[in-house]
């Protein structure tokens, strides 16, 4: 119903909003845009070398080319009013090819996800929104958990990684990336860095604060991820940000989302190697070499 009203009664206002957004993008701070362009250029140059090397190595090893995702660039505007904190209006919709729950990223890392789809514009929530939650892990794969927005130690908005098993202590400054659990966020997108420990919920688990890599002021232009262009949907995106994951992807990730206490996945003990039972050599049945002779069979003496 909201979409119907937006595309009829509110259509002039929405069209005006789109053109205002275009104008804002056109007259944005030139120095900031130049800096972003330079960063992107260096990023792309580095990526092209890496991609070429990677392609060569993979072709040598017989692997398929590196997995990549399609994306749609979009501009954002913050929604105003009560309850609208952390809500963005995207300048792209289903006509541009974005789909429900699509992931928003920038060159720095994760921004949020699409919440409500429209034909020409959509509504998205960023990581500051109360409904935002993402399954994350540290780069080395030792700590897994769910990151949700909270008030940080100094009152600023940060993410809280919780619950983390008591024996797991991620280093301050550790990079946290999406773990791919729940299949909503692709694995390997940088989320933030650990900045300290929060209150312990019950003494058996820990909570860690994460400072996200993308500040709310850096979300004016985002990329909306689409489907993987080739290969599987659980593709590892860490390489796109120059991050190397040291933990191989676990095939079954659904259990960890339900029980994130399994912060450090234990190696399953290898089954005991039992020597296979050798078949006993069968003695060949003795065959009477003289069946044509009646009476007791006569065996030749060896």
């Amino acid at each position: 119903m909201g979409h119907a009203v937006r595309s009829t009664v509110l259509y002039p206002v929405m069209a005006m909003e789109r053109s205002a957004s275009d104008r804002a993008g056109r007259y944005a701070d030139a120095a900031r845009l130049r800096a972003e362009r330079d960063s992107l250029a260096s990023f792309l140059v580095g990526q092209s070398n890496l991609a070429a090397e990677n392609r060569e190595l993979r072709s040598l090893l017989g692997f398929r080319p590196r997995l990549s995702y399609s994306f749609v660039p979009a501009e954002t505007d913050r929604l105003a009013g009560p309850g609208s904190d952390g809500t963005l209006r995207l300048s792209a919709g289903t006509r541009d090819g974005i789909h429900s729950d699509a992931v928003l990223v920038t060159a720095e890392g994760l921004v949020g996800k699409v919440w409500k789809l429209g034909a020409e514009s959509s509504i998205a929530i960023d990581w500051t929104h109360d409904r935002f939650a993402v399954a994350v892990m540290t780069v080395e794969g030792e700590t897994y958990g769910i990151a949700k927005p909270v008030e940080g130690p100094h009152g600023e908005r940060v993410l809280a990684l919780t619950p983390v098993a008591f024996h797991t202590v991620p280093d301050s400054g550790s990079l946290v990336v999406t773990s791919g659990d729940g299949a909503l966020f692709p694995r390997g997108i940088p989320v933030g860095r650990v900045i300290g420990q929060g209150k312990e919920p019950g003494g058996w688990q820990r909570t860690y604060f994460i400072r996200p890599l993308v500040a709310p002021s850096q979300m004016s232009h985002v990329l909306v991820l689409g489907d993987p262009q080739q290969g599987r949907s659980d593709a590892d995106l860490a390489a796109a940000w120059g991050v190397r994951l040291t933990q191989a992807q676990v095939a079954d990730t659904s259990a960890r989302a339900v029980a994130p206490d399994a912060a450090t996945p234990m190696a399953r003990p290898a089954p005991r190697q039992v020597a296979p039972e050798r078949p006993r050599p069968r003695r060949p049945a003795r065959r009477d070499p003289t069946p044509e002779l009646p009476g007791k069979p006569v065996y030749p003496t060896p």
Partner: protein
Amino acid sequence: MADGTRWRFALFIAGLVVLHFVLRVGLGLGVLAPDLLVIALLLASRRLRPGWAAGLGFVLGLLEGSANPTVFGAAGLSLSVVGYLGSRSREWLAGDDPVTMVAYFFAGTLLYEALVYVLLAMMGAGGSPMALLIPAFFASLYAAAVGLGASALYRTAVA
């Protein structure tokens, strides 16, 4: 509603509603623009019967919820309640002197913000109470000042 000024008043209310969406959504000013939707409803409620005022609130809430899906549903219900109470407020808030009108706009906007907050909190998206209190207080003050200016402008235009 007096017949002589009915259409001019309706045009004035419609103008406030259009201006609200142009400023907040069209030009992307967000909270920098006052909540003219609540002001328009509060002004209209003083002239409408409670049922009509609640209906107008529902329609305006539908528009607001469509422009801002975060408050879809919550805005409709909240503005219906505000419209109904705004209409009933004539029974015990008869005057329309500046002080009364400022208090009326302030209380109405604060009530709207509080209702939306409570409804969103019931749906699990409310945020902290402090996140409501401080912005809502300033938004209500802003709306009260702009509402007083708007009603003064209308009086001048009609007179």
